[in-house]
């Protein structure tokens, strides 16, 4: 797994999509760091071998002999061992300077964190989409990461090679059944509610009265995104009318077929933000991407893998990728509901001050911009969802520089 991860990362450092403004582009930093780590690994292997040889020399020396071969061997190994250790120290120093071994890198540059650049337009196939999921779970354990990588691979495989039936489709369903069995014993909420989209939607609307939830097929969402008033448009009300009419016509006509193909959920808090969640496969309750936008934005770039033109929503989208991975990693089939609830906690984006510094606006050190708290804690949500006691106040607000998480 380690080698695979490393080689994939090395491959990806060749990706051109990079709009960071550091003097050394993150891919180069990553490449250098990876090379140094490889060197370190080789030196460590040499040290191990050297240690074996020294022990061997000592063993031979303990046998009664009259040559001083063991002594020569010992001296030679001692010298080479010292050299190896010196090399390792040098590499370690270089790694420390580039921040790999210390916390400073996380705050200084974006190459290791969640902001690994990814050009992944909706609809256009980019096979490295899974990389984002991996990067997003930098804080998780190796086991979780492996599980997520496997899930991401199988998702992509299912999406792009559906004709290859590998029986994996059976697994998630049986997992969900197990989970629901558990919930009905312990949970207060009816577990059936997490399995279908309309149930999730109605539950959410009851809990959060100000949210507007809408669902779309992939194509319908694209049409709606294009009709949404952009910042240059003059007349918002006129523009949003036509698409609703056509989609309702479609809905009344072929009801069942449409329900199966729901691939996009739009969560909107008027005047605060619009969030787009994509489901994969269409018709399921498995989210695979989320993005935040201004309520005044419109255009074809408005989709779950797109980025807002405004810094505040762009940063939240990056943070949301981590949260999504966390929810997916929880594995009890509550990922979508947890995600939608967590998104709703951003209703207070422009009003709730940071729990650490007490201010609403703060200068973000990384981007040198004045921003409101972009982080909402998510770690306790899946558990709360499981036990049925959901209160969005458990999602504390933090500025990115005030956040207790490393991300």
């Amino acid at each position: 797994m380690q080698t695979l991860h490393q080689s994939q990362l090395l491959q990806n450092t060749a990706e051109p999509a990079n709009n960071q403004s550091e003097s050394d582009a993150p891919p180069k930093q990553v490449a250098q760091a990876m090379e140094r780590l490889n060197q370190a690994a080789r030196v460590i292997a040499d040290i191990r071998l050297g240690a074996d040889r020294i022990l061997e020399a000592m063993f031979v020396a303990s046998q009664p002999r009259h040559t001083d071969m063991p002594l020569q061997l010992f001296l030679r190994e001692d010298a080479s061992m010292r050299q190896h250790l010196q090399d390792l120290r040098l590499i370690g120093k270089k790694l420390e300077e580039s921040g790999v071994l210390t916390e400073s890198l996380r705050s200084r540059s974006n190459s290791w964190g969640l902001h690994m650049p990814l050009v992944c337009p909706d609809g256009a196939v980019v096979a490295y989409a899974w990389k984002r999921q991996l990067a997003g779970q930098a804080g998780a354990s190796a086991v979780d990461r492996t599980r997520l990588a496997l899930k991401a691979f199988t998702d992509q495989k299912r999406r792009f090679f559906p004709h290859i039936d590998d029986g994996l489709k059976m697994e998630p369903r049986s997992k969900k059944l197990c989970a629901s069995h558990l919930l009905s014993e312990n949970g207060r909420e009816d577990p059936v509610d997490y399995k279908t989209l309309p149930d999730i939607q109605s539950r959410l609307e009851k809990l959060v009265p100000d949210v507007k939830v809408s669902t779309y097929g992939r194509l319908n969402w694209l049409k709606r995104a294009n009709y949404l008033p952009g910042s240059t448009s003059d007349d918002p009300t006129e523009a949003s009318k036509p698409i609703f009419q056509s989609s309702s016509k479609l809905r009344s006509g072929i009801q069942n077929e449409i329900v199966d193909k729901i691939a996009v959920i739009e969560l909107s808090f008027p005047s605060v933000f619009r969030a787009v969640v994509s489901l994969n496969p269409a018709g399921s309750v498995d989210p695979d991407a989320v993005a935040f936008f201004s309520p005044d934005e419109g255009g074809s770039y408005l989709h779950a893998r797109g980025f807002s033109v405004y810094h505040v929503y762009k940063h939240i989208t990056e943070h949301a990728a981590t949260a999504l991975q966390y929810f997916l990693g929880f594995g009890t089939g509550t990922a979508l509901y947890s995600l939608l609830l967590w998104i709703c906690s951003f209703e207070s984006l422009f009003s709730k001050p940071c729990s650490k510094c007490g201010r609403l606006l703060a200068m973000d050190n990384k981007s040198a911009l004045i921003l409101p708290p972009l982080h909402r804690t998510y770690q306790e949500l899946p558990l709360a969802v499981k036990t049925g006691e959901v209160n969005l106040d458990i999602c504390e607000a933090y500025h990115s520089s005030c956040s207790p998480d490393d991300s």
Partner: protein
Amino acid sequence: MPVKWVLHWQPNQGSTVSSQILNEATQCVESINGVKEGRWKATLNYYKPLLRDQTNQAEFPRDFLGISLADQPNKYYFIIRSQRIVLEADSSIQLIMERLQSYKSKVALYFEGFQYQLGDFRLRVGKVVPTHSENVRGIVMEVEYLPISSMEKSRKVMEEFLEIWHEALSKRSLPGKFVNIDLNFGEFGLGDNYTPQHTAVRYALVMAHMIATVQAVRG
């Protein structure tokens, strides 16, 4: 349209406004990582009616303003603040007024300066000068928060930004401060969603305050 606040410079008792203050304010914007984008300009006209019979002059409102905004090059805005009227017209209205010989501009002012981007904020700092002179009559500052257009939702953000701004500016020990005036937009028939008409009304209010300040100093 993004929410915008319009501040004006209120000099301390006994001090006057000058372009030095504008320079200081500009430098302050750059100190909080503002990126210069270019120049901006707006023009404002005070109108008085052209009457054959001058005795009727008093019946006509004295605060009839016309303003062109940098954001809306094709529009012209009229405000009669005492009557709480604001109107958006095509910029060709000025030509029509000239032809009709109905109202004449008695005072014309420019607002001009530089525009800065600070992430999701846009700042414009500028001086107020009469059209044919270099005499700085005042300084204005526009603060725009681009992501949202609801005045209510953006209130806290704008207030805290101003706190940050005041804190940054206070280090320069200038003889005065930037002031924002709250007003009831509802009286003008304007709602929570920000529009250029809101900006026009803000400028009318700023002008009224600046004139009052000058008169207070003189009187």
